[in-house]
């Protein structure tokens, strides 16, 4: 079984890109399954069911979605194998720009969209900078020049990535992506012992354990204060 992880900011078009890509894989007889990770709610699993692929979803709830993802990834790989998949895809929303969901030796794809603004590539951390393939969506609604500038900005923070332009609505480019992501010789049985490409965002403070009250007296552990400089009251 081959395994790839796909991440990207919310609403960047991950699900549309994956569905259009899976269409092409199914036509080639590849058995694909998806596990969708999200935070509070998702009904994307219904979309995957509609195209007839095995799908599971995981909601992180009050936990950091990244931590939840990596704590469960091995179980997900075991599920994929039990289902007899040729290719397992995990989809997870990068809910903060410090997200770092990629595992060494496992293909990593980041989906971002042209509408997110030209400074966005610089703002996103390991999720974009350590991806193998960067898919840029929504190119059909911005100008050629903006597409070129945006791709250039992506390239300047991740010069190693292969950049692909995909239209999630009509699937233009999805066939091409499908030829890059699946390696039939890959034989991934377990992630036991594998490592993250980059450490995940961390925090361990009183709010992590359910504190709701505001004020210094209630703040324990790994707390950091904003630097507002020296200032005088008016």
């Amino acid at each position: 079984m081959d395994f790839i992880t796909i991440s990207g900011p919310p609403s960047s078009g991950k699900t549309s890109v994956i569905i259009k890509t899976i269409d092409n894989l199914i036509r080639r007889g590849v058995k694909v399954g998806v596990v969708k990770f999200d935070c509070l709610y998702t009904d994307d699993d219904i979309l995957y069911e509609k195209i007839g692929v095995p799908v599971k979803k995981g909601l992180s709830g009050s936990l950091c979605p990244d931590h939840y993802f990596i704590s469960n990834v091995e179980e997900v790989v075991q599920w994929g194998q039990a289902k007899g998949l040729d290719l397992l895809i995990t989809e997870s929303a990068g809910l903060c720009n410090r997200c770092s969901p990629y595992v060494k030796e496992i293909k990593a794809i980041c989906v971002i969209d042209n509408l997110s603004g030209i400074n966005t590539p610089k703002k996103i951390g390991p999720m974009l900078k350590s991806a193998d393939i960067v898919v840029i969506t929504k190119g059909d609604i911005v100008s050629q020049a903006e597409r070129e500038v945006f791709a250039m900005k992506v390239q300047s923070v991740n010069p190693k990535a292969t950049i692909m332009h995909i239209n999630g609505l009509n699937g233009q480019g999805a066939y091409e992506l499908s030829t890059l992501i699946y390696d039939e010789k890959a034989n991934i049985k377990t992630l036991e012992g594998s490592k993250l490409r980059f450490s995940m965002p961390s925090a361990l403070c009183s709010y992590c354990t359910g504190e709701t009250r505001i004020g210094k007296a209630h703040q324990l552990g790994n707390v950091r204060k904003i630097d507002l400089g020296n200032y005088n009251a008016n």
Partner: protein
Amino acid sequence: MQINFKELTILELFNNYPYARDFFSENFIPIEGLEHLTIDEALENIDEDIIEDRAINIEVFKVHLLEYIEMMKSFYTDEAIEAHNITILPGFYKDGSKENYDELEIKSGEIICIVGPTGSGKSRLLADIEWAANKDTPTKRTVLINGKTLETKERFSASNKLVAQLSQNMNFVMDLTVEEFLDLHASSRLVENKDDIIKNIFDKANDLAGETFKLDTPITSLSGGQSRALMIADTAILSKSPIVLIDEIENAGIDRKKALELLVSEEKIVLMSTHDPILALMGDKRIIINNGGIDKIVDTSDEERNILHKLEKLDKIMFNMRNKLRYGKKLEFEEEIENA
């Protein structure tokens, strides 16, 4: 590449590769005051807290730095892919039978129209060209650039894309003035005579647009026609891509004939998906798509070109009426026909 992290100082690196400085700042690596150290020493000297806070991975950064320098060098030295001609060799229709033509050659400066009902396979043809298909797409077509298939590296080059696209749905989304926008695009392309190019695009775009706009007009407040005019002038002059795919040009606020002439004068290959007879007749040929493949290839005949004159006359009537409407005049059909 000859960059020795143990020996080369940051200062020497920046002197040899000025753009490397941007890469440090893009990746939030504070290098001020460490310029005299070797690259390795400088990177070792960066505060642990900063490394953690800014999600920096020094090893990855080093690999990326080399890759970035290599990429920037190629921007300055590599010639863009020049497509003097593209050749499309037949693949298969949806039903599996072979496409009904021997080969289709398109030369730079030619305008080819693509017609066919929705879902007939127009997008697939355009995608095959964009991807420089090599019997590896659903149609199994082959697309040759200057008689050759593209290498993998050329296919994936983000800066050297074969195809630029212009469609009716496209809008400007950046919060910039026309001048800032053109400056940004020109800078990302690392062109030398930036000011001349910006001026040139601005003039050409205004020449195409029905109503003129200024350099300090925000791009998001341009009208549909003005936006399209600016996009076309910018693509013609500043985009490296030798092939331009156009999905209709609406018949308002832009001189479509001049727009096509501009693209052709910049030696672009123009492929235009359209069902507008005036646009279609401006093309040298048209490709008729059906059943997932190329059904027919028709040369624009002289008889058809004669119709074009008549259609343009009708178009002119509509154009004048629109202008009259805009400036509060009364519309009279007979009068317009006589004037035309």
